[in-house]
């Protein structure tokens, strides 16, 4: 077993409640209910344990983390124990009072997601009236409170035509950074893949826009770019490697190596109600299962990139192949391209209707069954 380093960051999913219904939400299809959520004092203890374990940053996320009225108290506590605090929000609940309260609590940074630049289209994707305007207002409040802002522009085949304007919006909102994030196909997004995955030509056009903007805005706006795996030649080093940098706590207190890990079969994910964060990080089966390289099969096992991309993404490998131990099928060394080719073919057909994220509104779908070639 390799030496286990301290995690860099914790994703604190405070709640799955959210006013928005984005069809690419990274939450699981089976959303947790409000009554299952951890209490305030449980989160306070998690923040203490995270800091003691060596965690440097806490990302308060959800759902919509602002749906928790104790958010300001949690931010203040995280700041007091030396954690760098980040709020990942839709912005629609961020009024003047809460912007000021969060800044006073010691919040370090805010990331606001944008679904589009066009109001009607943004509201349609979010499934929420007036979302787009409220998000712009929230961004101005964040800057007005003296907090640095990242615009998270989630892009897909239905909004990529407006990517250049989305980058301009980030400049106009005085963001220091924009994350141009192609949808990653897990959970709700996998369910809606045929409606969202861009074509190769759309992706190439988007990449050209990003490269031009990076050069033009150098020193003014940092542009991070996350490409959709399906068009990539190399798999992403998902989470920087399983159990290497990140841990994720769900609203009910389960601790996961990544936010999608509950889609994987055969795991009993530990709970903060039963064990300490340190014990879970260092000793649990869930975190040790895919740590390092000893679990790998070919072509990963002898690959020169095995400690660069760490076998790619376990959730994607399982979702697309049905084998939790398989090499991520995105990898160019995987001989069978039929799964990815089928998905990319969908992107040439007219997009089907969107299935919106709703609590209890969608029956859970076994990941493997949504892939035409795996049925």
């Amino acid at each position: 077993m390799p030496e286990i380093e301290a995690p860099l960051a914790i994703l604190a999913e405070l709640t799955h409640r959210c006013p928005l219904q984005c069809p690419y939400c990274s939450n699981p299809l089976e959303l947790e209910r409000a009554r299952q959520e951890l209490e305030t004092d449980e989160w306070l203890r998690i923040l203490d344990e995270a800091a003691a374990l060596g965690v440097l940053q806490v990302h308060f996320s959800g759902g919509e983390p602002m749906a928790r009225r104790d958010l300001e108290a949690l931010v203040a506590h995280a700041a007091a124990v030396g954690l760098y605090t980040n709020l990942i929000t839709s912005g629609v609940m961020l009024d003047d009072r809460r912007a000021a309260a969060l800044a006073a609590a010691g919040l370090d940074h805010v990331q606001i997601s944008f679904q589009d630049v066009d109001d009607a289209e943004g509201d349609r994707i979010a499934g929420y009236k007036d979302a787009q305007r409220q998000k712009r207002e929230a961004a101005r409040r964040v800057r007005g409170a003296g907090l640095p802002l990242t615009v998270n522009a989630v892009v897909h085949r239905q909004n990529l035509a407006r990517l250049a304007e989305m980058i301009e919006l980030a400049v106009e909102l005085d963001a220091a950074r924009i994350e141009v994030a192609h949808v990653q196909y897990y959970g709700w997004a996998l369910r809606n893949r045929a409606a969202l995955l861009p074509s190769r030509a759309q992706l190439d056009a988007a990449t050209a826009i990003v490269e031009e903007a990076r050069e033009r805005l150098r020193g003014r706006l940092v542009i991070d770019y996350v490409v959709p795996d399906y068009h990539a030649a190399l798999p992403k080093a998902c989470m920087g490697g399983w159990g290497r940098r990140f841990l994720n706590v769900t609203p009910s207190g389960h601790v996961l190596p990544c936010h999608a890990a509950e889609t994987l079969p055969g795991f009993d994910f530990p709970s903060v109600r039963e064990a300490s964060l340190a014990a879970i990080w260092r000793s649990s089966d869930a975190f040790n299962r895919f740590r390092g390289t000893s679990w790998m099969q070919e072509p990963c096992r002898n690959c020169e990139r095995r400690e660069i991309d760490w076998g790619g993404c376990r959730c994607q490998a399982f979702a697309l192949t049905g084998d939790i131990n398989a090499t991520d099928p995105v990898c160019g060394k995987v001989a069978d391209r039929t799964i990815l080719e089928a998905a990319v073919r969908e992107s040439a057909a007219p997009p089907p209707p969107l299935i919106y994220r709703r609590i209890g509104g969608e029956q859970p779908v076994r990941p493997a069954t949504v892939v035409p070639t795996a049925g």
Partner: protein
Amino acid sequence: MNEGRTPPRRIDADAIPRLKPHVRLQFSEARSAWIVQAPERVLMPDDIALAVLQRCDGVASVAAIVTALASAYDAPPSEVEGDVVELLQDLAEKGIIADARD
């Protein structure tokens, strides 16, 4: 201060580097190392980068930092200056430092 709209100057000997707001140097007890905390990223500076960052106080110029480092490390200032300017330009483009004159 207008961080978004006008292109910043390039880092030169007269620049006065400072950490941007909400960027902080912090000692991690768990790692026994200094780290840089920034929005959604962490930097692990090597000894030289750390020595530079600890002098980015919004008062000292690059020239003053170079003089101090050349003295501390007993190195020729001309060599130190190239390295320091290159490092700070890179950190400026990553949103870690800014020039207090901008």
